[in-house]
């Protein structure tokens, strides 16, 4: 028996899975150690952080759904032939948002529009040619006379879906409160009071309300985005909401994998330089001073171009456009990582210089503790907050850097959907009158949500893990 599809594991996919496995393993490890768990408990109590976490979870789940790739089986033409699979690589997200991907217009259309953005010569039923705004193929196609019906249709849908959403939210909240009250062995009414007053150990109030907000929003927007183009369409008529959702994975990959590529360099070299001093320090400093005097964009550009040339010459080894784009994305992460470790490395070197003279390090040396153990037990944990802060700042910075690099043309593959490419394409239309604002706005909203929630959450993590701030 064979499946009607063929699983495709892209390079970045496998790294994301690896990252996920590491995160789960870490969570498991932490949950067994009481003293490691307590800072996380503190985060759990902070409402804002938990709201940010819910938003992040939304992004992460979309990103993960978009990281499960496969190729569909083509309809069998001949039983004797080997099974054929479609050349196009799809992701689970494509399947879920199937309608969005297919609703392609001819060109630009404004959000929730029923007519195209620009006039075209059309032949009327009476054979007279005139310049009009043509109807969209999908946007508001169910309306007979959009001019009169559109507002009422939108309002109807809004009210209906909001009510539906609130109802669903209430039911789910009720069930959830019941489960919670079971767990804490108190009456549901008492539990509800506690949650509403924010007296629970975990900030359930914030979690429930943020998740509820998302639920109601999705409930409202999902049918809207199918019947209309919620964020309009871009130049080639693709739905902007679909593009924004696909952009999430690219953003997350750039943010996480680059950090993964950067951390080993920064931590290993930074701490070695600061701890061992002398020749090792000189060598490492020389290395990063040299590297940082090369203009970063130039280095990235040349690296990406070399890769481009390589891929063009060996086009046979890439079975699909998606794979090509994926390799380029991975390579971009690596090269960003290689150029991006210098700042953190400097910080870590400085901090280690300070720590190696700390009395507890001297005491450990006096106790005969070896270098490796001093570094892993005394220095690394005490610079971890710097790493955490740097990672959080870099994450947002990298998501933004992707946009800049795409502008220069050395970012992700033009075929890959990313917020950077969206912005880059929208940039050309900023001068148009009336302005095409929705691509930019959509990319901005999605990017802003991700960066803001990541910053808020990492701030809470830092506060919880910095012992100097704890217990205040």
């Amino acid at each position, binding site marked *: 028996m064979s499946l009607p599809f063929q699983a495709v594991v892209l390079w970045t996919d496998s790294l994301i899975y690896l990252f996920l496995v590491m995160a789960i393993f870490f969570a498991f490890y932490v949950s067994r150690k*009481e*003293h490691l768990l307590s800072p996380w408990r503190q985060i759990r109590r902070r409402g804002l952080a938990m709201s940010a976490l819910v938003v992040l979870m939304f992004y992460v789940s979309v990103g993960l759904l978009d990281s499960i790739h496969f190729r569909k089986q083509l309809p069998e033409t001949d039983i004797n032939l080997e099974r054929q699979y479609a050349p196009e690589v799809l992701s689970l997200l494509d399947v879920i948002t199937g309608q969005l991907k297919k609703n392609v217009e001819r060109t630009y259309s404004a959000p929730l529009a029923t007519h195209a953005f620009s006039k075209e010569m059309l032949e009327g039923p009476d054979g007279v040619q005139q310049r009009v705004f043509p109807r969209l193929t999908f946007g508001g196609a169910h309306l007979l006379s959009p001019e009169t019906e559109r507002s009422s249709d939108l309002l109807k849908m809004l009210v209906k879906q909001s009510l539906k959403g609130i109802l669903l939210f209430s039911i789910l909240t009720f069930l959830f409160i019941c489960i919670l009250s079971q767990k804490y062995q108190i009456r549901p009414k008492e539990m509800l009071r506690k949650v509403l007053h924010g007296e629970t150990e975990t900030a359930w109030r914030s979690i429930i309300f943020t998740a509820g907000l998302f639920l109601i929003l999705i409930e409202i927007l999902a049918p809207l985005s199918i019947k209309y183009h919620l964020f309009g369409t871009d130049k080639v008529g693709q739905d902007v909401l679909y593009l924004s959702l696909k952009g999430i994975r690219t953003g997350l990959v750039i943010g996480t994998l680059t950090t993964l590529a950067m951390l080993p360099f920064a931590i290993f070299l930074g701490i070695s330089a600061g701890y061992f001093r002398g020749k090792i320090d000189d060598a490492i400093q020389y290395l990063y001073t040299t590297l940082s005097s090369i203009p970063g964009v130039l280095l990235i550009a040349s690296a990406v171009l070399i890769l481009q040339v390589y891929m063009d010459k060996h086009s046979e080894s890439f079975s699909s456009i998606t794979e090509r784009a994926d390799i380029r994305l991975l390579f971009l992460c690596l090269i960003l990582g290689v150029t991006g470790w210098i700042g953190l490395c400097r910080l870590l070197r400085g901090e280690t210089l300070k720590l190696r003279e*700390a*009395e*507890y390090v*001297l*005491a*450990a*040396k*006096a*106790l*005969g*503790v*070896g270098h490796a*153990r001093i570094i892993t*037990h*005394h220095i690394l*944990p*005490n610079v*971890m907050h710097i790493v955490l802060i740097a990672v959080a700042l870099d994450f947002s910075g990298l998501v933004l850097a992707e946009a800049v690099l795409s502008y220069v043309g050395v970012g992700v593959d033009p075929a890959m959907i990313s917020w950077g490419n969206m912005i880059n394409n929208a940039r050309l239309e900023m001068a148009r009158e009336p302005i095409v604002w929705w691509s930019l706005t959509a990319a901005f909203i999605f990017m802003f949500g991700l960066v803001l929630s990541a910053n808020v959450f990492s701030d809470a993590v830092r506060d919880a893990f910095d*012992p*100097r701030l*704890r*217990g*205040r």
Partner: protein
Amino acid sequence: MNNSLLQIRDLKTWFSTDEGVVRAVDGVSFEIARGKTFALVGESGCGKSMTALSIMKLVPQPAGRIASGQILLEGEDLCLLPEFEMRTLRGKRISMIFQEPMTSLNPVMTIGHQIRETLEYHLKLRNTAAKNRTIELLDCVGIPDPSRRYDEYPHQISGGMKQRVMIAMALSGEPDLLIADEPTTALDVTIQAQILDLLARLQQERGMAILLITHDLGVVAEVADEVAVMYAGEIVERSERGAFFENPRHPYSQKLLSSLPGNKKRGEALEIIRGAVPPLNRPFRGCRFFNRCDHAWDRCENVLPAWTLLETGGIRCHLAETPEKEVPSETEAEASKTIPASIQDENRSLLQVDHLKIHFPIQKGLLKRVAGYVKAVDGVSLKINAGKTLALVGESGCGKTTVGKAILQLIPQTEGSILLEGTNLSSLSGEALRKKRRDFQIIFQDPYSSLNPRMLIGDILKEGVTALKINRVDKKNDTWIDQLLEQVGLSPDAKNLYPHEFSGGQRQRICIARVLAVQPKLIVCDEPTSALDVSVQAQVLNLLKQLQEEYQLGYLFITHDLSVVDYFAHEVAVMYLGRIVEFGPVETVLSDPKHPYTRALLSAVPQVDPEKKRKIIRIEGDLPSPIHPPKGCFFHPRCPEAMPVCREAYPSPSQLSASHQTSCFIYSR
């Protein structure tokens, strides 16, 4: 009444924090007479500095605020003044000097410029007038060659000089009141004596009042006219100086005085104050000192003691309110039991240091050419017997910590030998050195930076045992950790906590436990109590003493506090600029010092005991730089008894008795 310059009435300075309102200053009242010195004493965290900042209206905003009370400066309530009027008042009528001279001066401005700024603002002096006045001020605070110093930057002058500059700056507005917040805590005793002298002289000349904030009762005994003891945000006793030191009335003051180490208390344990200062974030029902007081009875728990006026001051204690009441007899404090003197008196040599030299190269230029050496330690010889304590005394920068670190093999030595039970430590390396490391350990000065904040106490204690592969009874079994913690007076639960959950004294106990875990024979104690309050210092010293009796530990006790030496050590070595100038049994050296430096050092220590009238031997100037030590005897530029020969050569040690030796030409004849 009209003689009083500053009157504080029921001052309350509160802080809003996450844990509620912290009443840092909670109903403090006192007054300072014109031209007098009023000392505010107390342990850290009792609200003394906050009282001073409240007077200046510099309470950290927005968390802190002056909740109520009056601060009357010649009848004018400062609390009602707007900020812009306060600004003209600060520096002009009230000025303040801070504890840390190193950070109180702006490093990118010249000294002259910084003083001039206040002159220009308050006295509207300009150009030459301002410059001349600045130089006058510098001269007045005893800075040699003031016109040259005028253009120097703070990093070019020493700590004592910086404090003088701070004082000059504080004096520039010719204030009526000078608030000195621990003005000498960061300085060495000889410099401290200079600064206290200076303050006394300036006070006489100008008739200004001084509010002296300090934790050092010795300094108070030297300079104060009136003393107020603060505890947990309020004043518990106020008295004239003489009366206070002769007959402290409040149990807390009594305890404070009796916890001071000194030679009278040799051989017995120091008085300790059990427990800790109560948290200030909730109102008190009874006496704040209740849970730590030996005299407490049920009334203390439930009734707030009122302020009782006495002939020489006042006191906040139920003992004074109800003298006729039958007070429960003083419970025998556990600490007052004497620790038996060491029975074993064998002279088993533990550590022998011979002509130890540690020179740090100074590298210059691109190619890191060695341009010279900092001779941090320049030929030091020491000997410690098992079960004995050798105190290494000297001013900061004389190289005593370097000696300690070199013995621990934490810095490479340039020359000389360090023999621990006959093994030359510097000849060991790698695994052999690591094996030997369990025999010698170190306790550091700062209990806050000597414990890794990210490690559990249990892991910290286990670290040495794991690294040195010592077989503690059972690897899996942690009972030895519990025992160790109990031994240093901590609960076994401590092993699952992080260091930040402990107070300074408790942390120092943990440091001691960490060292004990590997069962060493020699412990280098690098100023182990100088960061602690006196009552806590007493606890740590008692513990160290008790452990010495128990395990026959040898201590190299590095300190600058001579009263601790007097109480604790068996032998003492006085160090000056990398060399030992005097060495001998503690009784001999401290009662009959021979070397002029030792004498000056001893005379500079402020004495609490009013009977001990001392004559201060003033030594001028600061410690010279170890890069260019003076030719001849290193001490001769500061020595009051310098002879021509002192400029020529360094004196060789002269044996005064079997155990007492000194390096000075006076005795080499």
